[in-house]
């Protein structure tokens, strides 16, 4: 065949490869090839499937195993005692295992021969080596590779021979044979029976892992390598070899916490390792696999972290693509350097089929299997299964559909224990519980299909109730006010949403009012964490709105069926209240009032049904106060004060009933602060200061009783800040600076306690800004500039974190304005002008989004006035300056026309008129 012919065939074949296999024959016929060329092209294309994936890995990657120089001389072909070494099967710390043969009659018997490494041939290691042999001799179980012979080589190196197991590691075996759940469990139970038999002989294996459990082609698992096993009766402390090899010998991914801590090793250690293996057989991963990259990481994880339920690690795809490219470092020890000999023997078809390690789907594992595995992985040995038999029996129960002993109550127990021991750890506990609830619920819906599963399903439903209640009512409040809990809440929220969305997607969920009720409640809680403006939140106001709305919709649906359900009505009131509050913080304050009014109506309805309901009355008082924010934000201070006073009256009654209720007391006294604030805006500075002083003292006292409570501390900081405002209004600037300093201290502490709490961050920014403004008035200009710059930095950060909150844009505009003002005062006109122009544009942007924003309009008027000052400082021409005045006056006039002009602006307005020659 000539080169041209070759070229032609290549072209045609390459084109054909681009086509579907079906289309190729016809294509070849039309390609104009000679008979000979056609035959060659067909021949090449016939192997297209097989050839597709070859040579994809670079040769170097493929060859790395045999590139490694072996420094030990090869024993292949040598004779040791009656054995002829065929090849090395693998090597561990002390010895190497070889495939060897010996003549038995006229037959060759294959055996695994373990030789102590020559350099290890000291009394210490020899003793250890012989111990292993003795251990093997005592074990006699069909699933344990048995001792066949032992002796010493001519040079004195001890050896022993074991049954040679022609099989695959258990995980690989399951994958290759596409074992389902039940097959895997059955196989695992056989392993348990081998381990249990060893335990009865007082032997603990201590290095259980898939590469030490080979499964032969007929499905018989064989336990290998008792190299670091231990006889329980041998006295502690005498076992020197143990201390020498402890860390080096075991496999971190499968080691138990007590093993890593060097604590006494019992049968519970093997139970833990078996748990890891079961985890892996089910999910295709080890519990802390991602931490195995470095030793310290995995050690810490095993000692401290809660293992995830295996279902959470299982991939959702049909086949869990696992560790194919990762594999070489995936197993931390000799598992990898031990190229399993057996794979050679098993023949090419097996080798060829070797694909990714498969695992089960998460839904197959969720529920009881998760619990069984987690029980075996408990940190404290005494909390695991009492014996391998008990472990195996529980698996048996699961396989038969009977209730298992691994109960969720142990979770609850653990959670409780965490709460007592360490509050932040409770967060982790809560997450765990939540994950489990999610798992159980999902399983529950699936389980409903089969009637035989009915009993199990009902039991699970009860579990869900118990756990959900514990999560919603016990754990969440525990972490609610804890400093630093916000990141945990973010996790909580995403997990919760995942679970809720799954639940609401399920058609069966719609039929169960009980579950709908819980779903609504959970949505509301999630909304709280996302963006309840009255509590520490993660600043996701948009997400919060969606969650509250979902809760609202579900509850409205339920209300149709039970219109007189108090809890439902109270819940609806909560939903409306939150939605109203969020709107009042958003850019369309008009939307807020009807929502809050509806909340008030519902609250009154609840109280009418049960006048003694303290909580309902407290919530009413609170909602009334919040209703006052709307006129306050809208510039109607009188109307706001009316709501505040009404709220104050309600809180006073509540306080009289429960004088030791600090929440009520705090809200009561804060009403005075609200009233004072509104009075201040109305220009009644003296009255304002008096009102705030009525509240401030008691608030200080109450807050001091709760130094770690974020809500109490925040309220204190706000009260300081409002009092400082009134100092400033009364032109008591030095006292104002001192008071703002106090507010800043509180805000700093709260914000540092949880840098992810955006509300605390906003308080901090506000404190900086107000301090800076007061410092300017107190003629502390440099300090002022610094404070305002700090404020602007924090506000900008906040805007980036939650761009959906209109308030954030307003804050940045407002602070930019302040910065410009201070710079004008400092006669740094050019910088001042630049900042003021920025502020002007920012306000325009805010007003464009919400033309009803009275504040922004006022402030933009003031920005024009300040711009005029800066321009005058730069000796700009009179017309340009007058233009700014005109813009300011027009803005004020616009407000006047709508009856939204603020009294505080009287002076500025008169001044503008004078300057522009208007009277």
């Amino acid at each position, binding site marked *: 065949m000539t080169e041209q012919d*070759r070229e032609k065939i*290549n*072209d045609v*074949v*390459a084109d054909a*490869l681009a086509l579907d296999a079906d289309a190729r024959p016809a294509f070849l016929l039309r390609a104009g090839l000679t008979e000979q060329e056609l035959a060659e092209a067909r*021949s*090449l*294309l*016939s*192997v*297209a499937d*097989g*050839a*597709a*994936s*070859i*040579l*994809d*890995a*670079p*040769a*170097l*990657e*493929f*060859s*790395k*195993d*045999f*590139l*490694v*120089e072996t420094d030990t001389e*090869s024993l*292949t072909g040598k004779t040791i005692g009656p054995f002829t070494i065929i*090849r090395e099967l693998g090597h561990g710390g002390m010895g190497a295992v070889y495939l060897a043969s010996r003549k038995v009659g006229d037959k060759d018997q294959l055996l695994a021969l373990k030789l102590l490494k020559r350099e290890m041939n000291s009394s210490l290691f020899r003793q250890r080596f012989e111990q292993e042999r003795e251990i093997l001799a005592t074990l006699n179980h069909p699933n344990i590779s048995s001792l066949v012979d032992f002796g010493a080589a001519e040079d004195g190196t001890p050896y022993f021979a074991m049954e040679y197991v022609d099989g695959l590691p258990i995980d*690989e075996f399951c994958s290759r044979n596409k074992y389902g759940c039940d097959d895997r469990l059955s196989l695992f139970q056989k392993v348990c029976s081998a381990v249990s038999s060893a335990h009865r002989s007082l032997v603990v294996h201590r290095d259980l892992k898939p590469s030490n459990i080979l499964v032969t082609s007929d499905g018989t698992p064989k336990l290998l390598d008792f190299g670091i096993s231990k006889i329980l009766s041998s006295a502690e402390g005498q076992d020197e070899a143990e201390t020498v090899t402890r860390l080096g010998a075991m496999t971190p991914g499968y080691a138990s916490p007590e093993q890593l801590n060097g604590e006494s090793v019992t049968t519970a250690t093997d139970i833990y390792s078996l748990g890891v293996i079961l985890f892996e057989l089910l999910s295709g991963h080890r519990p802390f696999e991602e931490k195995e*990259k470095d030793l310290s990481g995995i050690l810490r994880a095993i000692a401290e972290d809660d293992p995830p339920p295996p279902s959470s690690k299982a991939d959702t795809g049909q086949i869990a693509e696992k560790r*194919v*490219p990762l*594999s*070489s*470092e995936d197993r931390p020890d000799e598992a990898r350097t031990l*190229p*399993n*000999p057996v*794979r*050679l023997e098993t023949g*090419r078809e097996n*080798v*060829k089929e*070797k*694909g*990714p390690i498969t695992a089960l789907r998460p839904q197959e594992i969720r529920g009881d299997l998760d619990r069984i595995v987690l029980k075996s992985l408990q940190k404290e040995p005494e909390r695991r299964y009492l014996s391998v038999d008990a472990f195996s029996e529980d698996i048996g129960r699961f396989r038969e559909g009977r209730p298992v002993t691994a109960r969720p109550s142990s979770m609850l127990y653990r959670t409780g224990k965490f709460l007592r021991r360490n509050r932040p750890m409770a967060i982790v506990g809560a997450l765990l519980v939540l994950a489990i609830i999610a798992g159980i619920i999902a399983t529950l819906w699936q389980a409903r299909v089969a009637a035989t599963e009915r009993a199990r399903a009902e039991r699970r439903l009860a579990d869900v109730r118990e756990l959900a209640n514990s999560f919603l009512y016990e754990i969440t409040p525990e972490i609610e006010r804890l400093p630093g809990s916000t990141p945990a809440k973010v996790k909580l929220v995403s997990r919760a949403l995942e679970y809720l969305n799954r639940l609401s997607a399920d058609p069966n969920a719609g039929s169960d009012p009980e579950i709908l009720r819980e779903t609504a409640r959970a949505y509301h809680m999630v909304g709280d964490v996302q963006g309840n403006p009255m509590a520490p939140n993660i600043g996701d106001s948009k997400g919060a709105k969606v969650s509250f709305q979902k809760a609202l919709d579900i509850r409205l649906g339920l209300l149709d069926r039970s219109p007189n359900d108090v809890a439902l009505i109270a819940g609806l009131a909560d939903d409306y209240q939150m939605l109203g509050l969020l709107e009042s913080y958003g850019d369309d304050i008009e939307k807020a009032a009807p929502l809050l009014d509806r909340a008030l109506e519902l609250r009154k309805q609840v109280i009418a049904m049960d006048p003694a309901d303290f909580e309902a009355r407290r919530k009413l008082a609170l909602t009334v106060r919040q209703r006052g924010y709307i006129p306050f934000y809208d510039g109607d201070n009188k109307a706001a004060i009316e709501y505040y006073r009404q709220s104050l009256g309600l809180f006073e009654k509540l306080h009289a009933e429960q004088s030791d209720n600090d929440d009520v007391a705090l809200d009561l006294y804060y009403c005075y602060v609200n009233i004072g604030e509104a009075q201040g805006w109305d220009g009644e500075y003296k009255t304002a200061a008096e009102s705030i002083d009525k509240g401030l003292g008691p608030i200080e006292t109450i807050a001091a009783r709760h130094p770690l409570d974020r809500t109490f501390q925040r309220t204190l900081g706000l009260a300081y800040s409002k009092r400082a405002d009134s100092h400033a209004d009364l032109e008591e600037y030095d006292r104002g600076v001192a008071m703002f300093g106090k507010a800043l201290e509180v805000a700093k502490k709260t914000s540092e306690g949880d840098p992810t709490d955006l509300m605390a961050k906003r308080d901090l920014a506000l404190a900086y800004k107000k301090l800076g403004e007061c410092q300017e008035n107190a003629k502390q200009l440099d300090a002022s500039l610094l404070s305002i710059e700090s404020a602007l930095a924090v506000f900008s950060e906040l805007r980036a974190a939650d761009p959906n909150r209109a308030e954030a844009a307003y804050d940045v505009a407002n602070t930019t304005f302040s910065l410009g003002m201070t710079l004008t005062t400092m006669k740094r006109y050019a910088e001042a002008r630049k900042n003021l122009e920025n502020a002007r544009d920012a306000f325009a942007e805010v007003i464009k989004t919400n033309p009803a924003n009275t504040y922004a309009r006022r402030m933009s008027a003031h920005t024009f006035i300040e711009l005029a000052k800066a321009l005058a400082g730069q000796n700009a021409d009179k017309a340009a300056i007058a233009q700014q005045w005109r813009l300011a006056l027009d803005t004020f006039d616009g407000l006047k026309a709508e009856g939204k002009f603020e009294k505080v602006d009287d002076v500025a307005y008169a001044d503008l008129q004078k300057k522009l020659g208007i009277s």
Partner: protein
Amino acid sequence: MSDGTSEITQILHDWNSGDESASERLLPYVYDELKRQARRLMSRERVDHTLQPTALVHEAFLRLAKQGGVDWQNRSHFYGIASRLMRQVLIDHARQHGASKRGSAQIHFSLDDVTIPVETRASSILALDEVLARLETVDERQAKIVEMRFFGGLSNTEIAEALDISERTVLRSWSVAKLWLYRELTRS
């Protein structure tokens, strides 16, 4: 290697100034360098386990060029040579590992085959080498592309540059070459 530095410099100068025979004289040095680096990579802790053969060849090039102290233009030419040498390195190692070409009709060159015993892999490499040598006589360019891509770890772009053909041609030739090799390897 340091002994050879001045020698390398001379060779590189010669090559750079158009003496093609210089490349042959360079081979032993490149070979040593590749082997040294391959071993260094292999013995490295398993933190960064994925080998980058391309990087290896690049690195070898840079080191040698640096040692030669010349601004070397023949980069793509070097890649071709380096690929051939990598092939040589790997074949030598495979032989050292006691692999034989017999009994290795099965080939396993995809990463899915990580669990294949070393012996089988080594045999596979030897078998491939033999079949590739035959391909050289049938279609030299295809064989070159396989050598550069599989042994040299070069990208299609680099191969296209080195052989002065389009990337599309590289890809097409590569897929046909795989068919040819696979057929020959599996032919009993």
